[in-house]
């Protein structure tokens, strides 16, 4: 067991608590970088998919996990990021400008949408964002001159300093691009959490009343959370567009929004690890199901809704038996070993709260 002796305030907010964890993450990144030489192109594509979902998960995690605002409309921001990035590139902008611009645009739009939305909380916010997600689908169809409506758009080839990057012809380059963006997003996320803004997010999540008593401007904090969350989601959306190659109004449906929310719950709300664990589950579940169907013998029989049905069941089991998600289970196992033999069962008991309504009648 490692004991941290904190001798200055700096130690509380360091990026890595000690050299050991720095080493672990360093090795992880090194393995990720050499992965294209270890895997064939199919699995590399799957890993790329996991990373893209993880970025999207980080975006929603900022809002739901850190600030406590459940959003069921993030597919709309994925779509906005995707369409704006591709449209910018069609205007002749290079990828290195179009991609951040798409993120910034999505973030700004997210903040504008947040201004009315922050008056809502809990259930009402969830419903407003559902409406947003449904509207996005129709708006893409209505804006046909720009978005090509139902016939959709095709992603162009990315060129960075003369190097061509395309999902199918050069999957390894595309993988490295996505990996670099994933690492940048993760570092940005981690650093925001260390900043006063990140602390304000956590304060708003835990109690709005006590946060405003501590001098946190609730509306401004929520708007900032919305903006940052949407910006990261927009970047993930652009990458999703490049990954899919072609997309239209149905690519970013409400099911994607719901999947995204469920993903971070399965992974573990409020942790960076959770976004990655959840992305692994979401990206590999279809492969796993088709493989297990082959194994059972009903290989060619297609069962519609099987994927979402199984996904729903996994989620119900997680909420009932492990509300902290995969990351929570991993923490429990790790702490059990670290404290052996002093770990007790009650260490992770959650405090239950009795409900009080805000309604008059």
């Amino acid at each position, binding site marked *: 067991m490692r004991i941290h002796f904190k001798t200055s305030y700096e130690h509380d907010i360091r990026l890595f608590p000690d050299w050991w964890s720095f080493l672990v993450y360093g090795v992880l990144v090194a393995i990720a970088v050499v992965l294209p030489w270890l895997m064939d192109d199919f699995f590399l594509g799957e890993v790329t998919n996991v990373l893209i979902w993880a970025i999207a998960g980080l975006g929603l995690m900022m809002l739901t996990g850190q600030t406590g605002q*459940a959003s069921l409309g993030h597919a709309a921001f994925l779509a906005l990021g995707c369409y704006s990035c591709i449209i910018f590139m069609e205007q002749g902008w290079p990828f290195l400008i179009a991609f951040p611009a798409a993120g910034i645009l999505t973030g700004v739009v997210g903040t504008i949408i947040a201004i009315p939305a922050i008056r809502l909380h809990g259930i*009402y916010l969830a*419903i407003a964002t*559902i409406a947003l997600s449904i509207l996005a689908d129709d708006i893409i169809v209505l804006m046909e001159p720009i978005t090509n409506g139902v016939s959709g758009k095709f992603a162009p080839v990315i060129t960075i300093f003369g190097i061509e990057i395309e999902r199918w012809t050069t999957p390894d380059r595309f993988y490295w691009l996505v990996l670099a963006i994933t690492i940048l997003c993760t570092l940005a996320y981690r650093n925001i959490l260390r900043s006063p803004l990140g602390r304000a997010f956590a304060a708003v999540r835990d109690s709005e009343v006590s946060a405003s008593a501590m001098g946190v401007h609730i509306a401004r904090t929520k708007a900032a959370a919305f903006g940052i969350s949407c910006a990261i989601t927009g970047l993930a959306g652009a990458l999703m567009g490049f990954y899919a190659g072609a997309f239209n109004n149905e690519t970013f449906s409400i099911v994607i929004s719901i999947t995204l929310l469920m993903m971070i719950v399965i992974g573990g709300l409020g942790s960076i690890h959770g976004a990655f664990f959840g992305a692994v589950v979401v990206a590999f579940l279809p492969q796993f199901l088709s493989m297990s169907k082959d194994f059972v013998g009903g290989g060619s029989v297609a069962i519609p809704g099987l994927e979402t049905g199984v996904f*729903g069941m996994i989620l119900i089991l997680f909420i009932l038996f492990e509300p902290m998600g995969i990351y929570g289970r991993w923490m429990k196992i790790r702490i059990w070993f670290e404290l052996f033999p002093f770990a007790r069962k009650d260490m992770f008991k959650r405090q239950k709260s009795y409900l*009080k*309504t805000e309604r008059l009648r």
Partner: protein
Amino acid sequence: MEVVQLLVSGLANGCVYGLIALGFVLIYKATEQVNFAQGDFMMLGAFVCLGLTNAHYMGLPFWIAAPLTIAIMAVLGYLLDFFVLRHLFGQSQTAVVILTIALGFVIRFIAGVIWSHEPQTLESPLAVGDFKVGGVVLGMADIAVIVVTVLLTYFLYQFFQRTKLGLAMQAASQNQMAAYFMGIPVKRVQGMIWGLSGAVAAVAGILFASKGAIDPNAGLLGIKAFAAAVIGGFGSLPGALMGGLIVGVIEPFASRYFPAGYSQIAPYALLLFVLVFRPNGLFSQVRIKKV
């Protein structure tokens, strides 16, 4: 005449939305939870009735099958609370939201496996056809929907205002701990409200299936019912019905007078509009939280 015709068909659709919204509101009123699977409950109720009635499956007479369906769905609702939702007691609202969305997926999957994804029609005695009153075509099913919805809303409203159980349900939601101290079995009351909302969903499902074909994705209608519940203000039974009627009436008028593509946006645009300007619905029941 055209306006009246649109109004009547809008009202009939609106009543179905209102019935689903009633299910939301019942659960919200008594437990402060929101059941995102209510639309799928409605779909399940429709398919249970279809499975009992249609000659292709069980072939029971409709007037036996319908009460049986309501009973089955009520029991199912209670069991759902008993086995699943009771374990979430004391956890956040968001956990329940996500759980019920997942539940909706599972219900849709199960219904698809049992009754297949083909659209099917219920052999209902209500679907006897149309008759004309002064140039307006009325469907028997439409009239049945409107009558049943209004009666059901009235009785549920009275139930909450007058009966001991209804008051216990309201007390349980307003302050759980105080309700415990008053001797209200909060958990059992919650189970009952889930059963009741299952029964309401069954009624909505039977009426919806009488109006036309259903398939396992019919549960997505629940999202429109959400708009209805929000416009009416969560927690108000007459509000839910009112919201349902508003959404139902807007739809045919929008598709008649708006250009194509804009019409399906109308209910959601209205929903966002209401949320922005009256965040707690038209029939608000919320006060500002004080410390």
